[in-house]
């Protein structure tokens, strides 16, 4: 199986590559359109600031490529947020795959949320054999509110989406590569999806 990890200079991808390795797969880091289109699975990672990450996608033309992919695509953390309509972070426009606007947590809670929190109301083959609720590792200051695309819910200040799905596109706010055995199983479930 060919797994492409989209390379747009947005943060550390080593942990994702290692997590795939532990499952027996190799993730190829690439920004090449043909290579991305040919892959069986695509992982869209991201750590950092949304508007500058979006600028990098636009300047490399990947903003046009990603929404037209037809194989299963998994956005992680900022990757998931960039797949939304827009985000309050730097008032960036997103890729418009998930129909929701990413918002900032209020100062009433500690921001960023750093640590383990539960995901529940799990609704997708992505969560096959995953206990509801399960603890996952999260690091973020912005969140996607609940919407039609929500397939997992977490509560921090308010109930929000920790996973989204639209056709072949999946997005998770948590870090499966850092969430112990449960996270590894979710990654493994993603690799098994056939569409």
């Amino acid at each position, binding site marked *: 199986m060919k797994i492409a990890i989209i390379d747009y200079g947005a943060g550390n991808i080593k*942990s994702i590559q*290692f997590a795939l390795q532990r499952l027996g797969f190799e993730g190829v880091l690439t920004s090449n359109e043909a290579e991305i289109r040919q892959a069986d699975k695509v992982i869209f990672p991201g750590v*950092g600031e949304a508007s500058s990450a979006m600028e990098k996608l636009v300047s490399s033309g990947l903003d046009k490529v990603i929404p037209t992919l037809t194989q299963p695509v998994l956005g992680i953390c900022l990757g998931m947020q960039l797949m939304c309509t827009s985000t309050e972070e730097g008032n960036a426009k997103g890729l418009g795959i998930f129909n929701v606007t990413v918002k900032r947590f209020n100062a009433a809670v500690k921001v*960023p949320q*750093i*640590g*383990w929190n539960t995901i529940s109301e799990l609704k997708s083959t992505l969560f096959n054999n995953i206990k509801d609720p399960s603890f996952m590792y999260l*690091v973020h200051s912005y969140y996607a509110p609940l919407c039609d695309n929500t397939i997992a819910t977490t509560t921090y200040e308010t109930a929000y989406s920790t996973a989204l799905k639209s056709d072949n596109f999946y997005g998770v706010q948590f870090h499966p*590569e850092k969430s*112990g055995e449960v996270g590894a199983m979710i990654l493994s479930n993603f690799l098994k999806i056939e569409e």
Partner: protein
Amino acid sequence: MDIKNGRTVKGVNFVNLRDAGDPVELASFYSKNGADELVFLDISATEERRKTLANLVLEIAAKINIPFTVGGGVASIDDVSQLLNNGADKVAINSAAVKKPDLIDKISGKFGSQCLVVAIDAKQIEGEWIVHLIGGKTPTTIKLFDWVKEVEQRGAGEILFTSMDHDGTKNGFANEALSTISRLVNIPVIASGGAGNMQHFEDAFIKGKADAALAASVFHFKEIEISKLKSTLTAAGIAIRN
């Protein structure tokens, strides 16, 4: 875990490990046994430390699937960049932040607050909490409660507070100081120094209002099993992964 020249030092007493001095093996053991996060602190004083530490981070990242923080002598953007690129989730800075506070702004500006832990060693001098350097050996003129606010404003993502008065005593964490810090800042506070039994952890969360608690020797010496500690804390009503 305290690391020296690529090996775990200070009181590791694991009979079921082939080599208790190997930080990768120990990390993997803790990761499988329910630790939520690991902190590696390099205490080497050699020239080679940076390369050794960077290689070690790569090995740890390959092996474990929970978040980990790396610190010890981190003093520049390049240090941070190398550690993060090798798979560390967060870096901890301590003395360098005291000497050059704008390093906090620079690191959080470039890599984001979420990957920056500011570690603070402090102890009381005539009733006042004072920040100390070099593992608590050298006092500064900085007051702890001023410093925590400053590091938050400059962009720290988390504070790792070690009370030198409590470290190694096994008499419990510095709960009063912890609760003051938690009231002063709106970023997660990690309690460190003083863990001796399970009640101490419960106290750190409830009395100290800490967001996380760190301990070394009680785990290294198997005085506390992580799984039992977690079920005890859950029974006490503390939200914790188990």
